[in-house]
């Protein structure tokens, strides 16, 4: 059995006196694809943001590979080199062209020479099927195109793991498919992925495990088939009946 790539042990997270995460235990192996779902405010974003230290956890321990996430800047940098992230609101840098968006972190963080960074950028833009947009600015692209650029930007850093925080929630319905296609391709290639999403079709076909969260806790964790067809917990059943009737 291979060692887990991500290990969260008894993790708590507080915002002031409000407890956003309670006793989270989660292990993710290399190549595993996890979908996290749950009602709004249940702590899904907070959980994955703890994995790349956009939020600091208060209790418990988080390991990414060999590195434990602590206050040590060195460890945080090391973790962020291994973990990419895709946001609901794309967050492309508005003052840079698409190709610059993909080059900047390669150059600054990985110290890759400009020409090589551009080459890598174009390679991944081609993979997400929009190489012709390279010299445009983010505002000139549709939401679906922007999100594909954001995925390509994360891929340029050659991460071991990619975190997705509701990557399709801000998109018009006709653009959701193109982004999910890119994510499905990634999953097939063996990328380790944690996706917060309510796209149940994606979860069914791609996920190795589905995690249901409510009120800051992991309530249920199961293979997709079992999760959707035979949920055990009452809260899971209620949630599923709500989103599946939509």
């Amino acid at each position, binding site marked *: 059995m291979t060692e887990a790539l991500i290990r969260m042990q008894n993790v708590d997270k507080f915002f002031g006196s409000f407890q956003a995460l309670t006793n989270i235990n989660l292990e993710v192996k290399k190549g595993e694809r996890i979908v996290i779902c749950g009602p709004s405010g249940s702590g899904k974003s907070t959980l994955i943001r703890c994995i790349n230290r*956009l939020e600091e956890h208060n209790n418990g321990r988080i390991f990414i590979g060999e590195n434990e996430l602590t206050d040590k800047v060195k460890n945080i940098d090391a973790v962020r080199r291994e973990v990419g992230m895709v946001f609901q609101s794309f967050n492309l840098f508005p003052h840079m062209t698409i190709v610059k968006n993909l080059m900047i972190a390669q150059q*600054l963080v990985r110290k890759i020479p400009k020409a090589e960074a551009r080459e890598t950028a174009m390679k991944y833009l081609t993979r997400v099927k929009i190489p012709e947009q390279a010299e445009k600015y983010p505002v000139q692209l549709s939401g679906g195109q922007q999100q594909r650029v954001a995925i390509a930007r994360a891929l340029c850093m050659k991460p071991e793991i990619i975190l997705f925080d509701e990557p399709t929630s801000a998109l018009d319905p006709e653009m959701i498919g193109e982004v999910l296609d890119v994510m499905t391709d990634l999953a097939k290639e063996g990328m380790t992925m944690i996706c917060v999403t309510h796209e149940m079709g994606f979860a069914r076909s791609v996920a190795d495990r589905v995690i249901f969260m409510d009120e800051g806790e992991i309530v249920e964790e199961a293979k997709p088939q079992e999760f959707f067809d035979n949920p055990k917990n009452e809260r899971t059943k209620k949630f599923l009946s709500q989103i599946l009737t939509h």
Partner: protein
Amino acid sequence: MNFDLTLIWDSVPRMLAGIGITFQLMALSAFLGMILAVILLLMRLSGKWYWSWPAQVFIYVFRGTPILVQIFIIYYGLPQLDFVRESILWPILREPFGCAIVALSLNTGAYVSEILRGGVLGVDRGFLEAASALGLKAHQKFIYITTPIAARLALPAYSNDFISLMKATSLASTITLMDMTGWRRLLRPTRYLFH
């Protein structure tokens, strides 16, 4: 009273020389003011009270008092102090031009610093989080993400301040420094009153 057109004509070269001084004043104090503004901004953003407080006091004082008062204090007030006259700054502060530059730079520096801070605070947190997630360090985020986005956000307010600065340069004429408007005021009464 005869209206002497030749007087207007004769004074054109002096007024043009005045324009030169106005532009020098503006350009120099805009430049020095910007440097000061950035320093003040960094002090305020440092998160250390011993940097942030002095900057805040400075900004409060220079934004809270009229520019004319600041010019007068620097030109008429500072030379009263012995140590100022003995300091290495005296060659600058002795000249009206130097005093005007100092006053205008300090004043515009305080205003522009607040404008820049507004720009920095206006930068969407999402961009910075994306940069963090990509592994950029704090100073890299500041240079490559915050600064260019904040500069664009601050530009309209900055251009307003630049116009205020232009107007303020005319106040510098009150300390005998004759820029464009200053020369005209000097020329007019001598002719009208004594002709």
